[in-house]
């Protein structure tokens, strides 16, 4: 299954946030969306997952979700959105409870996703006793548990410190290599975008339009923090962003 966006526009009242965005989210790859702050990238993600309705344009699912998929479009949120009164496994169980799975099947899924995110030892720990990185891994485990067709990741690493971010990025790459998933990954961090994205969509400042779509062919497992090719792409993305960011900044000053 893949997603297709056709001429999607969105406004809040008189403020135009997104304008005429047409984009394909091909199956099995990670599409990163970057752009200056306030360009509507998080709004676009909410539209894609059906948490908001676009003012104009269509967002369509092409094909059927894979068998065993409990929730085709699944989010990973910036602030984790874990229930503080449920343990790690309780938070994962939450999203399985409504599907009438057998007790054994539920347990199998929880064991599997906790193992994949290296959290098996922490299954009974409450979120307040987990570090930021672990909380986000619980949230990723929760997303994996419903076997999504497309993962919608809204700045999943932005609430974490630099070291944790690096570690979690490696985790995400490892997860993708083990079982490739489709994802839309919104970030303002270009380093994340070039490390994780098969394609990077650059949005302009508000109202957000699609400025450029960059494909990165290097396989994820060969990308490193110091890769010169990636640094070149990151520089190129930054040149586009810089101009947009400067203009946006000026606009805010002008009121």
């Amino acid at each position, binding site marked *: 299954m893949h997603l297709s966006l056709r001429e999607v526009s969105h406004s809040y009242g008189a403020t135009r946030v997104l304008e005429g965005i047409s984009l394909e989210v091909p199956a099995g790859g990670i599409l990163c969306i970057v752009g200056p702050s306030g360009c509507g990238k998080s709004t676009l993600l909410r539209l894609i997952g059906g948490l908001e309705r676009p003012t104009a344009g269509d967002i369509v699912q092409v094909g059927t979700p894979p068998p065993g998929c409990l929730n085709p479009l699944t989010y990973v949120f910036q602030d984790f*959105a874990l229930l503080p009164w449920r343990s790690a496994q309780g938070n994962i169980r939450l999203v399985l409870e409504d599907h009438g799975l057998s007790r054994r099947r539920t347990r199998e899924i929880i064991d599997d996703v906790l193992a994949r995110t290296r959290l098996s030892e922490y299954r009974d720990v409450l979120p307040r006793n987990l570090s930021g990185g672990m909380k986000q891994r619980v949230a990723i485990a929760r997303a994996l548990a419903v076997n999504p067709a497309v993962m919608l990741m809204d700045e999943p690493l932005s609430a974490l410190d630099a070291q944790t971010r690096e570690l979690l990025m490696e985790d995400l790459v490892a997860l993708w290599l083990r079982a490739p998933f489709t994802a839309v990954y919104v970030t303002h961090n270009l380093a994340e975008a070039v490390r994780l994205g098969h394609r990077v969509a650059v949005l302009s400042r508000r109202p957000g339009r699609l400025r450029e779509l960059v494909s990165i062919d290097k396989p994820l497992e060969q990308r490193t923090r110091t890769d010169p090719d990636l640094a070149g792409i990151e520089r190129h993305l930054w040149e586009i962003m810089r101009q947009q960011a400067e203009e946006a900044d000026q606009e805010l000053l002008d009121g």
Partner: protein
Amino acid sequence: MDESRRKAGPPPAAAGSRPATRPVPYRGGGFRPRRVGWVGPLVFAGLIALAEWGTRSGWIGALTLPRPSDVAATLWQMALSGRLWAHLAPSLARLGVGAALGVAAGVSVGLAIGLFTYVRAGLVPLVAALFPIPKIALLPLFVIWFGIDEASKYALIAFGTFTPTVVATYGAVDNVDRTLIRMGQSFGLSWGSIVRKIVIPGAMPGILSGLRISLAIAVILLVAAEMLGAEFGIGAFILEAGSLYDLEQLFAGVAILSLLGVAISFFIGLAERRLLHWRA
């Protein structure tokens, strides 16, 4: 000690070659009450000891305050003769039934106000209109509606606990983290699941702290209702003692009410520790 502190103090204008040092003053701490179990009982014991000493030594007159040991003796006799139980049992039943009805209705209506636009629009002004009415003023009306027996007392206590519970509950629902609700929706949870597993647990801290106020109001209304028309009950007992100017009995009744208040507070504290163990 004083000497050394003076030496380590701020440098005088013409200080020597070595710059003076002093520890950075500590400014953090506080604003975080801890649980200390022994202070509460100590305050009670201290006040009672003061009253006992004052009445024995004579600077508190016998008509001003009865001697605490006499009050205790009265309570003990009441317990032995069974009179204590005869008054306490109907009071507890009225409190239990009335408060249970009021809290159940209050939490339900509060949830509905928190969840549904039109229920909110319709009922919030109504609750605001009902809240400030002294419920005791309505007792005659309740007697006409529900009869002179238990039902009117249940209704009074239920009505009195209802409004504060509603206000506390919908405030608590409003404060539930919206991102958690969006998360539930994004995973396709059913409406009922979101309410049961996200909204209600998230509102529980606010509901329980509202319960403290509601139940204290319930005790006040219980006594008021029993004073106006009951043969047995703590309120009737206090009224009778008061009209006979039997201060020992009066204070014995008051002591029972205080104990009731402490017991309610204890049980709510217990519920908070059990239901809200996930909070830091």
